[in-house]
């Protein structure tokens, strides 16, 4: 027994156990996210439950659990039809159900508003019927819907024109404000011409709005009626339908197709229904751009600072203190950075920019409000210690002989740095960047007060001059998770989206890290000593 302890057998078990626990926890996390996230878009069958009391429930069976008191189970149905029932979900005791069946004619509608509808298709109205040439009612619905969607594209064009007009209006008003601020009289010819321009734009605006509402009311005339499980019929404009399908009769192939369509919508579509449905494109874009802009600031700053600290600064008390301070910076809670970012970047720098360059806009802020630039700067402040520490370590790991070898050949310190040391340290620096990016991708708290919003009206990059709008507010996957998970009015219905968003965020970090790791390994092969 004594030798058992002496050999350190328990220690091996202890260390191995610690590693397994860590791996297990990480694996469970990933598996939970995967299981919950991947299945969201798979169309599940719609059940119709007849109850003993004569009622009926229709919807997707989400889960079952033991009844709290007594025996048996109860099932949770996603019943949808929010405008009819008020709630999306309903618990039904198994003992209350007389029969559970999956009717072929059950229809699921995905709608622009009020969530899913579960019921049966009844028929099209006369206007809709006029657009179709087919016989089968279900195919007729499909064709009519397609027709309406085609027409809707004109509506999108009007939307674009409206946005354009409002942008021009804004810029004209800005010019006017600026002139007034400079002390011009309202009777000044330039201001008068601006006023005229605004009036013309106003006219355009109204004309477009009228066109739009006319179009909408025309399109809304195409309707179809559906009946819920209790037989209540509802007439719905086709334009409000996003997608409709009969899950109980779908083949595996069409289910896969449906899944891919939903996936494409996720990646490239915009959110709707206060973010609980639709796509995540603005949030994905915001997240990636945030990390990118953050790297643009923190990477050079961190590397340069580390070079000074390691290569130029004279080793001593001050350098040691700076090093301790840098390490401590990495441990400060991120919300503190957020508050600092708000005070320093947003109100301090942004406010100064506003006072200096956009005084006519005040009190409306231009840069003095949260935006992707300020959020990126705040995050780069947060991640710069990581880059500094990694770069310092990478430089420190280079054998001194290499430095001396270069200097002994008559190289300056700068030449040694750029030609020998930085290439050799690049894998380590890349590691730092990976860690920094991963940390930045996961931060939400500091963003919430420096520029993230629930729904951003426009992306930070678009087709209007100057194309890159770093002052704009943006959406972010991490905040999205928090928002739909905890701030949404219908948390239960938003839950699948929470998992999907989480999965996506993990995926983005994974993809970005993989690219960085691939680059790092390529560098490693080139620059490190294999023989020492």
């Amino acid at each position, binding site marked *: 027994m004594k030798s058992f302890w002496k050999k350190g057998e328990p220690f091996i078990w202890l260390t191995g156990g610690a590693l397994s626990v860590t791996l297990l926890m990480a694996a469970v996390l990933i598996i939970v996210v995967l299981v919950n996230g991947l299945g969201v878009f798979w169309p599940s069958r719609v059940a119709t439950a007849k109850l003993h009391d004569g009622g009926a429930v229709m919807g997707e069976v989400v889960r079952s659990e033991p009844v709290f008191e007594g025996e048996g189970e109860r099932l949770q149905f996603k019943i949808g039809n929010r405008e009819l029932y008020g709630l999306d979900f309903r618990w039904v005791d198994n003992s209350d159900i007389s029969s559970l069946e999956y009717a072929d004619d059950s229809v699921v509608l995905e709608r622009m508003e009020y969530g899913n509808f579960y019921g049966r298709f009844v028929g099209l109205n006369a206007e809709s019927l006029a657009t179709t040439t087919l016989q089968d009612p279900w195919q007729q619905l499909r064709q009519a819907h397609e027709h309406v969607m085609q027409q809707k594209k004109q509506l999108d064009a009007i939307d674009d024109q409206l946005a354009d007009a409002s942008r021009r209006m804004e810029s004209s008003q800005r010019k006017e404000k600026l002139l007034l601020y400079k002390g011009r009289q309202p009777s000044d010819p330039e201001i008068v011409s601006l006023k005229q321009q605004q009036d013309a734009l106003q006219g355009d605006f109204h004309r477009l709005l009228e066109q739009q509402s006319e179009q909408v009311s025309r399109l809304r005339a195409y309707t179809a009626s559906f009946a819920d499980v209790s037989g209540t019929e509802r007439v719905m404009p086709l334009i409000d339908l996003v997608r409709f399908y009969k899950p109980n009769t779908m083949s595996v192939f069409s289910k896969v197709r449906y899944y891919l369509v939903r996936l494409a919508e996720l990646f490239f579509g915009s959110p709707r229904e206060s973010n609980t449905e639709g796509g995540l494109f603005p949030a994905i874009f915001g997240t990636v751009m945030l990390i990118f802009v953050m790297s643009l600031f923190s990477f050079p700053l961190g590397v340069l600072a580390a070079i000074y600290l390691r290569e130029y600064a*004279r*080793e001593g008390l001050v350098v040691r203190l700076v090093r301790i301070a840098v390490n401590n910076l990495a441990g400060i809670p991120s919300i503190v950075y957020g508050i600092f970012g708000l005070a320093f970047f947003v109100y301090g720098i942004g406010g100064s920019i506003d006072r200096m360059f956009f005084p006519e806009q005040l009190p409306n802020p231009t840069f003095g409000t949260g935006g992707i630039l300020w959020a990126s700067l705040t995050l780069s402040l947060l991640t710069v210690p990581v880059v500094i520490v990694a770069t310092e370590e990478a430089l420190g790991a280079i*054998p001194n*002989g*290499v*430095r*001396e*070898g*270069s*200097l*002994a*050949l*008559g*190289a*300056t310190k700068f*030449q040694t740095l750029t*030609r*020998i040391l930085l*290439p*050799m340290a690049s894998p380590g620096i890349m590691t730092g960047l990976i860690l920094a990016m991963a940390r930045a991708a996961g931060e939400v708290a500091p963003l919430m007060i420096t520029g993230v919003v629930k729904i951003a009206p426009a992306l930070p990059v678009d087709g209007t001059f100057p194309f890159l709008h770093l002052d704009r507010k943006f959406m972010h996957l991490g905040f999205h998770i928090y928002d739909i998970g905890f701030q949404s009015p219908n948390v239960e219905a938003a839950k699948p989206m929470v998992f999907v968003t989480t999965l996506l965020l993990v995926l983005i970090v994974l993809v970005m890290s993989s690219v960085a790791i691939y680059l790092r390994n390529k560098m490693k092969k*080139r*620059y*490190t*000593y*294999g*023989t020492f």
Partner: protein
Amino acid sequence: MSETHSVMVTDPIVQVKNLDFYYGTSKALHNISLDFPRNQVTALIGPSGCGKSTLLRCLNRMNDLVDVARVEGSILLDGTEVNTQEMDVIELRRRVGMVFQKSNPFPKTIYENVVYGLRIAGVRDKTVLDETVERSLRNAALWDEVKDRLHESALGMSGGQMQRLCIARAIAVNPEVVLMDEPCSALDPKSTARVEELISELREKYTIIIVTHNMQQAARVSDYTAFLFEGVMVEFGITEALFVKPRYKQTEDYITGRFG
């Protein structure tokens, strides 16, 4: 030190006069005076910590890199004072090359290693670079072994080859003096023999100052030998004379292996 510790050198290239060296408050070299003869191999021998390497690193001012180091006294390279603020260290190091104990090739190709000194000096002419590579590698007795893989990484070479590459790299910039700090201490006997052979060949073109622990090596390759002990230069003379008939007991004790 009186003149009796040393022999007269008629054509010195490096002259060290009354050199004191301090690491912080501790004195590592005491009043060293020594003339290094041109186009000869001079060996610095002595027990560990006697200051041989420190003296060597004073000659191309590598000690500048040590924050706490301080040098007092005079070092003349061809009559020019080295140990002043005005001296261009870059220029000095180009004239006084160095090979280190541990071979330190850069993580670049063999070709780029050799032309590094030229590149940082701003030479871009491809023919000059090519010629230099061939000449230096030939002089370093490495050409035949690596001529077919000049553009492969230098890190794939054997230890002996790497050290010869470092020698080639040092002589590529045509220095006047080549300092060697125990160049064979990490090499096997076969590689050592090759490097020693190389040193003998190089003496025609360059002045070589070599620090070595190995007294047989000093006897084999050097023309002159200086024996240092505890920061003091005990004896300097023609190698044969010093080894056959040392004038001081300390020298005799050391070379006969009684200590050190």
